[in-house]
């Protein structure tokens, strides 16, 4: 019994030890990847909670309140789409990382409600996932730090190439362009962007 196991069991024994090890390694790395994926959405969600507080401070008159001490960005507006019950705090595009935490207002474009095209971008699978559900005619409300609320109505949507967007931020009536990656549900990044265009309707009195 003992000798047999020694003769026939040497190789399977090694295999028996290695296989589970490799399998466990596979499971662990898989879990890490899933964790990273979860972390991306968790970051997006938690950041919005912190941002809500920074937003209150911004409305109280604080200059560029950073949501956490080492943040490179701060809230500039609050965006909501009442028909879908969606809302998010919009960040100033200051550092390179703002997009991970919330929709970002591109600094090279006018503030929402001013003449010209104001551009707000966000990730397609987090903050702007709801853009696939918006319909022409939907209202978009932007509340600015100064307390003013600007009402926009969606006029049309288009798909453009990121480097040839054709968006000219300066001049023309006050418009809003909400930008995210296209197509929705794609797994890998691509050069196409989905642009939701909205026109300013009125400024709501607070």
């Amino acid at each position, binding site marked *: 019994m003992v000798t047999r196991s020694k003769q026939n069991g040497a190789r399977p024994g090694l295999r*028996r030890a290695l*296989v*589970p090890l490799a*399998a*466990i390694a*596979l*499971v*662990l*790395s*898989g*879990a*890490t*990847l*899933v*964790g*990273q*994926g*979860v972390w*991306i*959405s*968790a970051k997006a969600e*938690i950041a919005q909670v*912190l941002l809500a507080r920074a937003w209150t401070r*911004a409305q*109280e*008159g604080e*200059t*560029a309140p950073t949501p*956490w*001490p*080492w*943040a*490179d960005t*701060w809230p500039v507006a609050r965006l909501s789409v009442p028909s879908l019950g969606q809302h998010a705090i919009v960040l100033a595009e*200051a550092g*390179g*990382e703002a997009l991970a935490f919330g929709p970002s207002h*591109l600094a*090279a474009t*006018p*503030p929402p409600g*001013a*003449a010209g095209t104001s*551009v707000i971008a*966000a*990730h*397609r*699978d987090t903050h*702007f996932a709801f853009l696939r559900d918006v319909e022409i005619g939907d209202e978009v409300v932007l509340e600015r*730090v100064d307390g003013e609320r600007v009402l926009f109505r969606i006029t049309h949507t288009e798909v453009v190439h*990121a*480097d040839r*967007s054709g*968006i*000219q*931020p300066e001049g023309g009536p006050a418009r809003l362009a909400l*930008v*995210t990656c296209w197509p929705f549900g794609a*797994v890998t990044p691509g050069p196409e*962007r989905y642009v939701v265009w909205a026109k300013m309707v009125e400024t709501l009195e607070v």
Partner: protein
Amino acid sequence: MTSHARNAAGGQAWFGLVIAIATFAASLLLWSDAWADEGPQTPDGMVRLSEINEGALLLKTMDHGVYVPAPMIATDIELDISGPVVRAIVTQRFENPSEAWVEGTYVFPMPEDSGVDRLRMQIGDRFIEGEIHERQQARQIYERAREAGQRASLVEQERPNMFTTSVANIGPGETIIVQIEYQDIARLDDGQFEVRVPLAITPRYIPQDVGYLLASTGSMQNSTVPDADRITPPLMLPEGEPEEGLRLPVTIRAHLDAGFELGQIAGRFHATLVRHTAPGEASIELANGPIPADRDFVLTWQPADRTRPSAALFTEEWNGQTYMLAQILPPAELSADIPRRPRETIFVIDNSGSMAGTSMQQAREALIFALERLHPTDNFNVIRFDNTMEQVFPQAVPANWENVGTALEFARGLDAEGGTEMLPALVAALRDGNADDTSRVRQIVFLTDGAIGNEAQLFEAIHRGMGRSRLFPVGIGSAPNTYFMSRAARLGRGTFTHIGQVSDVAEEMENLFTALERPVMTNLDAIFPQDAISEIWPAPLPDLYYGEPVVMTARLNNPQGVMILEGQTAGETWREQLSLSDATQSSGIATLFGRNRIRGIEETRFQGANMEQVDAGVLQTALDFHLVSRLTSLVAIDATPARPSDETLVARQTPNMIPDGWDFEAVMDDQALPVQHASLDTALIDQLRPGLDPSQTRLDENGLPLPATATPRELLTWLGALMMLLGLIWLLTHQERRLW
């Protein structure tokens, strides 16, 4: 076995998630604590902005408590240059285009080493001379006058190179003229004199400053960063500028009395008109009329005979004492052709989130350039930091092919993310394995945008840990914190290099390497006859890098005898004798001495000096020399009230004409250009927003480039799930086989 593995994997994921949530919760706590002490800073409801490109006039309307932007009609600058001594008269004309009584505030740049010592306000044909007062007191005097309806002006220092003028009670449609004078010194570099008139303000990244400041020092008490609101005027976008004429026109005129036969005279960035009026004298003005205040004006001149030794000695009698200025350029041959000494170079690179984009690219390329310049006999190391820190080698290693290769690979893979925790990286760089090794020069090259607020802590670390190391900060991006970096360079006895754009990397790094590779002149000392001298600033004299002159100011008891300058260069002694009685009489030397004294005293703060003593020393010097400083301001008050007491809040129907007698020749000469009024509608306020470098906002017909808006979330999740599934199946099948 299987279930154990499953638990471990799941446990890790959960552990990661818990840690993540805990981190956020901790940051939340930290954040609320930090802000609880401070309370929200509330500038009166206006657009909040964080960057400045040029000075901007804000009109604070007295009725609404809101700011309204207004055009700064004209700045006129006159330079009177005698030898290297520059006297500048800056005339600012404040016009109120609104229909209310307003207070104007203008934030404007100044040369860092200049001394602002005079303020005058023109009312009709009278000039009201400003007085120097302790800062708080000056502000009180100003505010009292403002409430009483008197015209008043106040000049305050926000940073050593940034000042604010406030003007109270400008009536509807009125104009008030304010004149500020300062003393500066032309820099001598490689045989060429250069005077810089800053017109553009370096954008300051205030949100970060505030964030980091609170996180790192815990309070504003010992901070060198004053109220952020004060130094962040709004920025007018290029599109908001009037199409004809200029909103902030600047005229510059200079009279140059070089003291030697003049060679080439030129404006570095602007076309100039030069007239040679007499041997060694010239008058210079702008060739194409007024210029916009968006770029510094730099004037350079050279002696006709460039080989002529450049030594200049000036004295001034002031308040019964003699003040001296010496500017001496050591002969160049002393520094050339000296065998290269082996070096130990530590590169520190900032890859924090604020560096994202072109800044990171510049920093990366600068580092790669530097690594490729290393010599096999050199030792080196590379440290990167964001809110974490990483060293490529545990300690400095020889710059052989293999090690440099490793470092280059590391440099190419650097990405910008995270916060800016500079202190640990700085401390690591200063840690010296062989502090007593004098055969090697130890140099730290620090590549950063300096977006930090805990300057004082860093300065202290530099002072304490420096030893034989020398610090060479390299400012990256269009708006690095130059105040931090030039002071760090002085404390670290190195030089400060600024890389503004990617195309500058090679040239600027080349210049830096020239400084790094040439021997330094050390142990500089000025020896005077006994009892001839009472004080020298800067003290001690700083080390000199290639092409730099010795610049020193002194207070003399007895302006006779011979002064000897001595310094060491790579084992050789350089010595120069100058007779004090040969000095040229000049004016403004005492002011320069006072300014150097203030700077010297301010810098002892980071060398552990008592804060109260520093303050007392600065205050006394500033009051003695009539200088605006961190603790003193100039204030001018008109005794006659201008604004009727019942006129406080009501806006008038019709704007008035500019009152009779508001005539100021220096400015009026340039009245040819059309005066642009900013209309006071809200559309204009909307125009104000955080600005970008105009070069970055320029768009072509392709339109705005859009950012990447996809995350690898799904890819990660699917891939991860697939791997977990495969692993589990594998484990299960394996277990089943074992059951047989």
